[in-house]
């Protein structure tokens, strides 16, 4: 039996209300030494809030927290206090300093000193070591903002892992990681677990839960559903517990096989030697109307950068772009948008949400930007648009006029996706559109993408989950070292072929 492990942390009767929402009601949670405990639940179930209450980011209304070795209830008023008693956390929204170097971010507040001054050499060396444990090999003296979300996530993890002494909390740490990085992370988690550290792990990936966790606590609508041992809970049941009903079989989802008549179909997007110095080498790409084309590749392979060049987020400095048969000069994203493109960036916090603006404003902002300053969307219409999107994507929010930053991570993601759907684009570039979205809704969004394609819209789809790509894409372009290396379609579309192409092996195509 596993339950004979000693209890490390106990949370009892935790209640937390925000104006208009009860985020947690009477939730209990128990963490033992040397276990990996998955915290599961739909978007907005209260997972992050439970973590924030524990680590002092939010104050709870009610409840008690005990930790082994401390003979009174503990209340952390800040993450620093939590850290002092041995709890380290990677929050869902990475909160590092983009302007500081990677090494500084890892050691901020506990820099190695020599003669009273920061010992840069040691700091950089140690930071490099920590990251190479996670298989990340980058220049740690460069500012953090130079790197992708995934790398930033790894930096946050490296920092937390290094600090952790008793409890390590990871809130959706793998949401933008590829399989390789996930492997590495799991190896590190396993090592920490063996040394007796208790790990709280939040994720929406069921396979990861079953691979690594010992125990699962499920939350639904801010209430505790129960605590289960992972190997005694089949995944179908877990999903039911999370959403309170059965869901459609994921495998049922099937895209239309329309590869054959592509020859006749109109070409919507054509890139000819399009490139942006420093981020993506010149590439050629043809996308037909109604197609869902995927971009795959390792971290830093240039898949996001390719998307950015097409949309003009990074203004291409080489080659040409033809959109709907006409040459398109994109000077700013507005030009691309006016032509009928939409672009959902991968970095939700930095590039997606406009955090202090309301959910309604965040939904209508792209449409309003396209209409211009003088054609203001009437308030009533704005409300209708917001209602429509909230309804379509099942966004969980206590109102349309609360700041978007008060929504749970997955719900923020739905809002910014909805923002683009509202503009009714012909061509959507979706970079990790289901990042942080729960299992039930994820299928809904994948279905939505397929439906859009059926209606004649065209989609460029990027995801670090190959499974998801196989489910929605007709064609997958693979990138390596900022270069497009191959295109897979039809029968060649398989997990193993993609993996081979990504890693640099031979493929059947091209």
């Amino acid at each position, binding site marked *: 039996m596993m339950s004979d492990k000693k209890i490390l942390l106990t949370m009892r009767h935790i209640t937390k209300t925000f*104006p208009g929402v009860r985020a947690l009601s009477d939730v209990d949670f128990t963490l033992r030494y040397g276990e990996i405990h998955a915290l599961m639940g739909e978007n907005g179930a209260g997972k992050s809030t439970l973590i924030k209450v524990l680590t002092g980011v939010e104050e709870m209304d009610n409840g008690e927290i005990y930790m082994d070795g401390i003979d009174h209830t503990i209340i952390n*008023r800040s993450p620093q206090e939590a850290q002092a008693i041995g709890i380290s956390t990677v929050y869902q929204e990475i909160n590092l300093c983009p302007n500081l170097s990677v090494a500084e971010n890892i050691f901020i507040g506990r820099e190695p000193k020599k003669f009273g001054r920061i010992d840069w050499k040691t700091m950089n060396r140690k930071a490099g070591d920590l990251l190479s444990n996670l298989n990340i090999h980058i220049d740690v003296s460069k500012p953090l903002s130079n790197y992708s979300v995934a790398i930033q996530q790894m930096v946050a993890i490296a920092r937390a892992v290094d600090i952790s002494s008793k409890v390590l909390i990871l809130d959706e740490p793998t949401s933008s990681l590829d399989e390789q990085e996930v492997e590495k992370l799991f190896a590190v988690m396993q090592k920490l677990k063996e040394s007796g550290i208790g790990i709280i792990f939040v994720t929406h990936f069921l396979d990861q839960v079953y691979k690594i966790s010992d125990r699962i606590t499920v939350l639904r609508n801010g209430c505790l559903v129960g605590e289960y041992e992972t190997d005694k809970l089949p995944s179908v049941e877990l999903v039911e517990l999370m959403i309170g009903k059965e869901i459609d079989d994921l495998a049922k989802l099937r895209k239309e096989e329309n590869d054959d008549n592509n020859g006749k179909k109109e070409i919507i997007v054509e890139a000819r030697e399009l490139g942006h110095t420093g981020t993506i080498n010149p590439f050629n790409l043809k996308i037909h109307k109604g197609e869902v084309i995927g971009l795959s590749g390792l971290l830093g392979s240039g898949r996001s950068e390719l998307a950015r060049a097409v949309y003009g987020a990074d203004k291409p400095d080489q080659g040409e772009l033809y959109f709907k048969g006409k040459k398109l000069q994109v000077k700013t994203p507005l030009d691309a*948008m006016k032509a009928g493109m939409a*672009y959902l960036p991968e970095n939700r916090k930095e*590039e997606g*949400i406009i955090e202090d603006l309301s959910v309604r*404003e965040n939904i209508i902002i792209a449409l*309003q930007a396209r209409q211009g*300053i003088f054609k203001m969307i009437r308030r009533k219409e704005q409300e209708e648009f917001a209602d429509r999107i909230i309804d379509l994507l099942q966004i969980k929010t206590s109102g349309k006029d609360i700041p978007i930053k008060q929504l749970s991570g997955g719900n923020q993601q739905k809002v910014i996706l909805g923002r683009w759907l509202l503009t009714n684009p012909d061509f959507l570039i979706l970079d990790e559109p289901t990042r942080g979205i729960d299992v039930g809704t994820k299928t809904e969004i994948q279905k939505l993408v397929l439906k859009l394609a059926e209606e004649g819209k065209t989609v460029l789809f990027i995801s670090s989950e190959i499974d998801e790509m196989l489910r929605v894409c007709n064609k997958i372009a693979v990138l390596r070292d900022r270069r497009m290396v191959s295109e897979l379609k039809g029968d060649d579309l398989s997990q193993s072929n993609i993996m081979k192409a990504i890693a640099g092996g031979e493929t059947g195509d091209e």
Partner: protein
Amino acid sequence: MNKIKHIWMKITGFSLFFPLLCLAVVLVINLIRTPDFFRISMNNGVLYGYVIDILNRSSELIILATGMTLVVAASGGTDISVGAVSAVAGAVCIYSLIGGASSDVYRIPYVLALVLGILAGTACGVFNGFLVAKLHIQPMVATLILFTAGRGIAQVLTQGFILYVRKESFKYLGNFLPGIPVPTPIFIAALVVILTILLLKRTSLGLYIQSVGVNRIASRLVGLNSSLIIFLVYVFSGFCAGIAGMIITSRVYSIDANNAGLNIELDAILAVAIGGNSLGGGKFTLIGSVIGAITIQALTTSLYAMKVTADQLPVYKAIVVVIIVAIQSPVVKRWMKAVRHKNALSGNRKKVKA
């Protein structure tokens, strides 16, 4: 008990609560020290009284704070050149009107001189906007250029003299229009504020400004021209400084390049802060800034009324401002939160025992 707490939360959560509270405190203290503080009387066909005086004197500040609010909201920076720019605008107006020596003869129509003055202010705004939005210079540094050079430019026009316009009608703008008992600057300030609010509410400019102020990168990706919007708010701030310059020169029917609008930029920034606006940009309330401007003027006027001399004034003002800003600071807010937390906990313990 809970209900009271709820209502209390609602009131304190109201964004104008704090600015109004500050103003109320200043007014109440005045009322205690000067019982006839709120008395308004009619003398020679015009209204007199502390309240009228405060509103009148705060007009320039309100106008400058209007421009400053948008600058802060969109760029998260401040325009420290507005005082000097209003001096430039005043100098351009008077120089084009009467030339390089005090006089009572107009060279060009009065209205044209006003337009030229305001245009000069706007042109300064264009310069600032270019530096900040196109060259990406820090707002403080960019506007420092005109902050220092502005008065020099005005000096060139006045050649170091104080130029007087010896014509009664020139005073109307900064004092009273014949037959109207309310000071003209109050009308002008009200007009500027109302038109700005209409502009922000009837077009999507208000939304754009907030969006760019909150997240410039995300705003660009949804199709907003972030640098154009930032450019425009600096132009608008210059325009407001131009108008303020017209009032300032008309009040004293002269231009003194060294002293016109001196230090007023600091009051304008403070007005924005006291109004409950974050100096980091983003969401803003224009009405808050207006209340902030009136509060600052009320403070100045009441300190004078308490016989504080002009050279001591900054000290007292600084003390009050430090208190006001400190109460709104995140540290104090966190501290108040901690106190609440403690109370809540002792409440819990009681419940557990019971």
